[in-house]
Every structure is written in structure tokens, then in C-alpha cells.
């Protein structure tokens, strides 16, 4: 068992690994690049500065040796860059040219080295800008020549370079994560498809299959899955067809039986006593049997031919009112929201749903006391209330299964229905992407509720 904190999905783990790897490689490369480039550029600058200072000091030296007065002009001419400075320490005096810098900012050690006749250089900050200070001894006058070269340009270049490298490293890390995410997604796509197809099959769509893959790694998976699904579909279809065939074959003898029974029932009065009682049993059972076969045919037909539905806009209020007018007494309250709710559905099935719910209430609970058609959050809700004994918690799913009559069977003795009425309701409602359930009615009894998505006008 992995601890939940560490429980990253495979996809994220691949993405993180790729991102980290990419980040590490680019950061090593960036550090190396930085070291090489900065070192090289700085060295170039140092050499250039030193060479120039040597040339300059020679000129100054000559000028001092010849004792001419043009020293100031010479110094001015030597400081070409506005940010550069030349300081000439000569027998206690300081001559400054170029950008004015106070001599105190120079490190004392640097000057001492110059006085001792040793050329030196050092990177310092002078009045806010980075400079390279180069010190040269002046032989003639026992002085020190100091030239400050501005490093603003190279500093800017370094900042730009380092920014670029950091950004590049971060970007490459992120790219690695993205690439890993994408690649693992691609690699896992067959798995996602598999999940989708499997859940569609679990949801009842037996025709769902995986697309065939040319990829040798994936082809066996798809082939195996599809073969399994094929077998499952064949099996389910065969079962459904069997039930369908059975009820189909029963139709002819049933026609004979139902009509012979009708003839007999008409003459029931002629058969008194035991024979009459037996005849009554026979005829009522034949009728029940006929209803059962008809319902069974309807259910197996649903299993077999799913796609031929003719969906149209149906006014549920009208459907309920029509059926109520035909089979309900005035004691049943009929409530229809205004405007009357409309669904997209198959008329025959919707009729059957409402009809079966009413029949169920009549058969098991002494008839419906209220039928309502309501709007509920984008759904059309049909409620059929009865004042019967209600449906116990543990039977509430079961009552919608085929041939489940539960403990209420036999309550009315003579007529228990086909045992398929509520199963048909469930089937038809599911076909309309709706839900059906039973709950307690406020004030006692059961409330059967159907919710179907409302049609968009």
C-alpha cells in the first residue's frame, strides 16, 4: 500500500521524471556555459585594459620625462571613454582626468603596490559603477599611474547571459514536464479507451468496441477485449432471443386459448359448482398468462432491437391526463405543472410507463390517490402516490426487477399481474435517459417517481 501523499498517477510520475531530468541536464550545461563564457570575456577585458594602461603609462612617462606642459591635455586625450578615469599620483599630488573620482575610493593596497613598482589590477566599485582599476608605476617621477576602466558593458552582458541561462533551464524543465505528460497520455490512451469501452459495456451498450490498433504492442489488447465483448454480446443476445423466441412461439396457442376462454367465460353460468369454479380459475389464469407473454415479448424486444425508437416531443401532462381520463376515478387528484412539461420520447413507451405505474397502484395499493407531473431542475417528474402499505426499504430496488412480486404478491389473490409491469417501466425510463424509484409518500403509502430530462424547446 502506497501512502496517499505519494500516490501520484503514473502519468504525473512520468511527467515529473522527464521534467526533472531535463532540468538537471540543462542546468549542468548552463553552469558550464556560464563559467566558460564569463571567464573568457573577463580575461579578454583584463588583457585589453592592461595593454592599454601600459601604452598610456609609457606616453605619460615620456611626457613627464620631457617636462612639457601638455600633461593635462595628454591625460584628457587618453580618457576616451566618458566613464573611464585616470589618476596620476606624483610626489604627493593627484591629477585626475575623465570621470571625477575621489582618490580615497581606491584601495590603499593597490596604491602601495604601485609605489613599490609592481603593476596590479583589481575589480572595484567606484561611485556606483563597477570598474577595473589598473595600477602602473611611473619610473621617472616615482609616482603611480592608476587607470579605471568601466565594466558596465560587460556587467550588463553577464546579467543578460545569466538571465538567459536561468530562464532556459527553467523552461527546459517545464518543457520536460509537458513532454512527459503528453507522451504518457499518448502511451496511456489505449488504456483510457479500454476504460471507456468497458464502462460503456457495463452501462449496457453491448456494441461498444475498441478500435483496432496497428501497433504491435496494443493490437493484442484490443483484439482480446473485442473478442471478450463479442462473446458477451452473443451470449446476451442469445439469451434475449431465446426468451423472445419462446414468447413468440407461445403466441399462436395463446390466441387459441384466450379466445376459447372468452367463449367459455360467456357460458360460465351454465357450469355450476366445482366445474364453474375451475373454469373461472382457468380463464383468469389464461388471461394472466397472455398478459405475461405480451409483456415478456415487449421486454425481450427492447433487449434485441434498441435503436428503432421514434423519439418525438411529448407533452407528459397530456399523456397523464389522457390515461387518467380513461382509467382513473374522480377521487384521484391529478396535478400538472404549467406550462405542461415536455420530454423527447417514444409515445408508446411513455404511455406504458404511466399506465403500468397506475396499474401497479391499483393492483397493490388500492389505487392511486394522486398523480403529478412537475418540473424539477431541467427534468420532468412524474409522481404516482398511493395510500397502500408502502414498499419496505429493502425491496425498493427489487420491485423493478423482472418477476419480482415481493411479499405483496397474493394480497389480492386472484390477480397478481404479469410480474413484468415495473420492470418494463424501468426499461422504458432508462431508454429515455431517466430514473425511476420508489419512496415513502408523506402521510403514508408509496410514491413512485419517474424523472426524465426535459426536452429543449
Amino acid at each position, binding site marked *: 500500500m502506497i501512502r496517499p501523499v505519494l500516490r501520484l498517477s503514473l502519468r504525473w510520475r512520468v511527467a515529473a521524471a522527464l521534467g526533472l531530468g531535463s532540468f538537471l541536464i540543462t542546468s549542468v550545461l548552463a553552469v558550464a556555459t556560464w563559467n566558460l563564457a564569463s571567464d573568457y570575456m573577463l580575461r579578454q577585458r583584463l588583457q585589453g585594459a592592461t595593454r592599454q594602461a601600459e601604452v598610456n603609462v609609457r606616453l605619460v612617462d615620456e611626457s613627464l620625462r620631457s617636462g612639457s606642459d601638455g600633461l593635462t591635455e595628454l591625460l584628457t586625450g587618453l580618457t576616451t571613454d566618458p566613464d573611464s578615469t585616470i589618476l596620476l599620483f606624483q610626489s604627493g599630488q593627484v591629477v585626475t582626468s575623465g570621470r571625477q573620482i575621489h582618490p580615497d575610493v581606491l584601495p590603499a593596497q593597490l596604491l602601495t603596490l604601485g609605489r613599490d613598482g609592481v603593476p596590479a589590477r583589481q575589480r572595484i566599485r567606484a561611485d556606483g559603477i563597477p570598474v577595473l582599476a589598473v595600477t602602473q608605476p611611473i619610473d621617472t617621477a616615482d609616482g603611480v599611474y592608476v587607470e579605471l576602466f568601466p565594466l558596465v558593458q560587460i556587467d550588463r552582458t553577464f546579467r543578460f547571459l545569466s538571465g538567459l541561462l536561468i530562464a532556459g533551464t527553467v523552461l527546459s524543465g517545464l518543457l520536460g514536464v509537458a513532454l512527459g505528460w503528453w507522451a504518457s497520455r499518448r502511451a496511456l490512451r489505449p488504456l483510457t479507451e479500454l476504460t471507456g469501452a468497458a464502462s460503456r459495456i457495463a452501462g449496457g451498450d453491448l456494441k461498444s468496441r475498441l478500435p483496432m490498433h496497428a501497433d504491435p504492442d496494443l493490437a493484442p489488447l484490443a483484439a482480446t477485449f473485442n473478442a471478450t465483448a463479442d462473446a458477451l454480446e452473443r451470449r446476451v443476445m442469445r439469451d434475449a432471443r431465446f426468451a423472445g423466441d419462446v414468447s*413468440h412461439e407461445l*403466441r*399462436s*396457442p*395463446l*390466441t*387459441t*386459448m*384466450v*379466445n*376459447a376462454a*372468452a*367463449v367459455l367465460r*360467456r357460458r360460465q353460468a351454465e357450469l355450476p359448482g366445482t366445474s364453474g369454479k375451475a373454469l373461472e380459475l382457468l380463464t383468469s389464469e389464461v388471461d394472466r398468462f*397472455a398478459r405475461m*407473454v*405480451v409483456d415478456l*415479448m415487449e421486454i425481450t*424486444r427492447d433487449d434485441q*432491437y434498441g435503436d*428503432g425508437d*421514434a423519439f*418525438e*416531443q411529448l407533452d407528459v401532462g397530456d399523456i397523464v391526463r*389522457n*390515461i387518467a381520463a*380513461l382509467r382513473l376515478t374522480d377521487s384521484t387528484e391529478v396535478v400538472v405543472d404549467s406550462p405542461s412539461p415536455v420530454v423527447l420520447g417514444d*409515445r*408508446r413507451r411513455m*404511455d406504458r410507463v404511466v399506465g403500468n405505474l397506475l396499474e401497479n397502484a391499483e393492483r397493490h395499493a388500492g389505487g392511486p390517490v394522486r398523480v403529478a407531473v412537475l418540473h424539477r431542475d431541467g427534468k420532468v417528474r412524474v409522481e404516482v402516490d398511493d395510500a397502500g402499505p408502502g414498499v419496505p426499504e429493502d425491496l425498493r430496488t427489487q420491485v423493478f426487477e423482472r418477476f419480482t412480486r415481493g411479499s405483496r404478491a397474493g394480497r389480492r389473490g386472484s390477480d397478481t399481474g404479469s410480474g413484468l409491469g415495473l420492470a418494463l417501466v424501468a426499461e422504458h425510463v432508462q431508454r429515455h435517459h431517466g430514473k425511476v424509484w420508489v419512496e415513502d409518500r408523506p402521510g403514508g403509502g408509496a410514491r413512485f417517481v419517474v424523472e426524465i430530462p426535459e426536452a429543449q424547446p
Partner: protein
Amino acid sequence: MNVSVLLVDDDERIRQALGLALTDEGFTVEEAESGEDALRQLDSAGFDVVLLDLMLPGVDGLDVCRMLRSRGDLPIIIVTARTDTPDVIAGLEAGADDYVTKPLIASELAARIRALLRRRGGGRQNTSLTIEDLEIWPDEGVVHRAGEELYLTRTEFRLLVELAAAEGRIVTREQLLQRVWGYDYYGDTRLLDVHVRRLRMKVERNPDQPAVVLTVRGAGYKIGPPR
């Protein structure tokens, strides 16, 4: 009213039981075991309605239906295995007026037959309705177009009269199914669709652009304006 029914089915026991039950309902029933037998009997005697099983040995039930329809407007009810099979549409297209599914029950069948044979009542005495270039005489059961008689089946005629009597108001599908075919509730709308299509073939100048029987989407049908 003594109504004679020709019962065409290849299953002898069904014929017998249904024959007995329909006799109980007050009909005179003759039986035929095949399409050939049925056509022979229809040649020699008149019947009010034919109950025709589509699954017959020999001449197919659909062919019998087509043949009967080409001879006249004798009401035909077909018996099919299931409501959703192509049989239903094929049978209606072949000219059947209505259909029932097995197991068919005599009392329900009797209601269907009576609805089919019901004539339009009402106190119209020799008045005619005029739509476009049609002249409809409800009492006599004839339709004239520009003086020439059109041959409609009884069901087609009743459908046309129901629409015409509404004088341009919308008649819903449910109303039509109830008034013409006698369905209490839930009638098969395919029944109506096929009949409307057949009616249009006969009364419209251009059935693709109907001017007499107009569809009102989502509501039903209405008759075109009188000219």
C-alpha cells in the same frame, strides 16, 4: 347489423377459437386457410371485413392484401407477429386499414371491426364540403375532383371527412386515431402516417407539396383553406 368476417389464418385451432369467439360477439365468420382459399371465397361471396394473417403458406399475406385493395375498398385488418416488425408498415403500405397483434383477443378485435365499419353519423343532409378543387359528399361517401370521382377507401374517406369537418382547425393525431380507428388511447401513429401518405397520393395534385392535407408540426393535421 349482421357483419360477415372472412378469417384468413393457416392455424386451424386459432380459426376455430377465434371463429367461436367472434360469433359470440355477433359476427358471421367464414374461415379460409390460405391466400388462394381466401381469394376464391371473396370471388363468390361478399364480406364486410377481412381479417388477414400475414404469415400464410402459398400466396403471401401481403400479396393477398394488395390484390384485395386493387379490387375495391373492402376493409382489411392484418394480423402481425409484433408491432415493431417491418410487417406492420409493409401491411399498411399494401393497403390494410388497421392491424392487430397476436395474441389477438376477440373482444378487442370486435371493437376494431366496429370502428372500421362505423359510418360517419351527424345531421348533414346532402351537403358537401369543398376543399381546393375537391368536393366531398360525406353522406354518399364520394369525392369529386373537378367533376370526376376519386376512389378512396372507406378509411381514407373518413380521415378526409374528419379533417374537412374541422374546417381548417387543427385535428390532433390522437383525435384522428380515436375518431377514425376507434383507439381509446395510445394509437400507433404509424397507422396514421401511412394513411395520410396514401390519402395525399390520391387527393393532392402534388403529394410532395400538399395543399389539401396539411401537416402541423408537433400538433397534428389540418385541412387546406377552401378555394
